[in-house]
C-alpha cells in the first residue's frame, strides 16, 4: 500500500510533464500502457520537452531499463516459471513489483508464487495507469504549465528517486560525478546524448570503484 501512495504523485507528475512537453493524452497514456516503467517514462517526457532526438530517448530508456534484467534473474532463481507465465510476468515487471515480491512473497503461505507476483504487478499497473490518466486530464485543465513553473517538478521527482539511493560515499560520489559531468556536457552536446553518456560514465565509475574495493578488501 505505501508503494501505491508513492506511485500516484509520480505518475501524475509524469503525465503533467508529458502533456507540457506536447504529448497528447492518448500518447501520454499509451506510454504507461506499453512501456510501464516510471523513471524511463518520466525521463522521456523531459527529453521530449527539451526537443531531444527520438533515438536518444529510446537509448536512454534502454539504459535505464537494463537493470530490469537483474530483477528477472533474481526472481527466476526463487520462482520457476513456465514459458507463458514468463511472457506475461515480463510485461508488468517493475522495481516496485520486484520489491514487493521479494520482501512479502516469502511471507505468504506456500511462499512466493506466480499468482502473488502477477497480483502485485497488476495492482501496480492499474494504479500507475489510473494516475497517468488523472494527471493527463489535469494537465489539460491547467491554464499554462510553463507559466506555473511546472518544469521544476521534473528535477524534484527525480530527486525523489535519487535521495533514497544515496547510501554511502560511493553512491554519492557516482551521483556527483555523473550529475556534474552531465551539467558540463550539456553546454556542448544535445540533451539526450548527455544523459546517456553521463549515465554510462557514472555507472562505469561506480562499478570500477566497487569491484576494485571488493578485490582489495580481503588484504586490508
Amino acid at each position: 500500500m505505501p508503494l501505491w501512495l508513492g506511485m500516484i504523485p509520480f505518475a501524475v507528475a509524469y503525465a503533467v510533464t508529458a502533456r507540457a512537453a506536447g504529448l497528447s493524452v492518448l500518447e501520454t497514456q499509451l506510454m504507461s500502457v506499453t512501456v510501464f516503467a516510471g523513471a524511463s517514462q518520466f525521463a522521456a517526457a523531459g527529453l521530449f520537452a527539451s526537443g531531444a532526438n527520438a533515438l536518444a530517448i529510446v537509448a536512454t530508456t534502454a539504459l535505464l531499463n537494463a537493470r530490469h534484467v537483474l530483477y528477472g534473474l533474481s526472481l527466476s532463481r526463487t520462482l520457476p516459471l513456465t514459458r507463458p507465465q514468463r511472457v506475461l510476468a515480463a510485461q508488468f515487471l517493475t522495481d516496485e513489483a520486484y520489491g514487493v515480491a521479494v520482501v512479502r512473497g516469502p511471507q505468504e503461505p506456500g511462499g512466493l508464487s506466480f499468482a502473488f507476483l502477477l497480483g502485485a504487478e497488476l495492482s501496480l499497473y492499474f494504479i500507475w495507469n489510473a494516475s497517468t490518466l488523472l494527471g493527463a486530464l489535469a494537465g489539460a485543465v491547467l491554464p499554462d504549465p510553463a507559466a506555473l513553473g511546472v518544469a521544476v517538478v521534473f528535477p524534484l521527482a527525480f530527486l525523489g528517486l535519487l535521495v533514497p539511493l544515496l547510501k554511502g560515499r560511493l553512491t554519492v560520489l557516482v551521483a556527483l560525478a555523473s550529475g556534474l559531468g552531465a551539467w558540463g556536457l550539456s553546454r556542448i552536446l544535445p540533451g539526450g546524448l548527455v544523459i546517456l553518456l553521463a549515465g554510462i560514465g557514472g555507472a562505469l565509475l561506480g562499478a570500477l570503484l566497487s569491484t576494485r574495493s571488493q578485490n582489495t578488501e580481503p588484504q586490508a
Partner: protein
Amino acid sequence: MSVLLAIFLMWAVTYPVRWLGLSLGRLHLPPFWLSFLQFVPVSVFAALVLPEVLGSPEWPRRLVACVVGGLLMWRTGSLAPGILGGFAAYWGARLLGL
C-alpha cells in the same frame, strides 16, 4: 520520428530485457557488470537532475526548490511532501524576486 514510433521503440527495448532476465535464471553475470547495472539508476537520475537545475535560466529558484524538496524527501522518506514542499519553495523564491 513520430512520438508514437518513439513510444513503440521504448517498449521494444524494455519488454525483452524483462523477459530475458526471467528466462536466464541460471546465468551468472560477472561482478563488474552486475555492479554496473546496480549503479545505472543513481547515475542516470543524477544526470537528469543537475543540468535541469544548474543549467536552467531560473537556476536560483530551482536550486532553492531542490534543496527544500530534497531535505523533505530525506527527512520524511516519501516523495509527495518533497515535491509539494519543493514546488512551494520554488514559488516562494519566485515571489521574493529570486
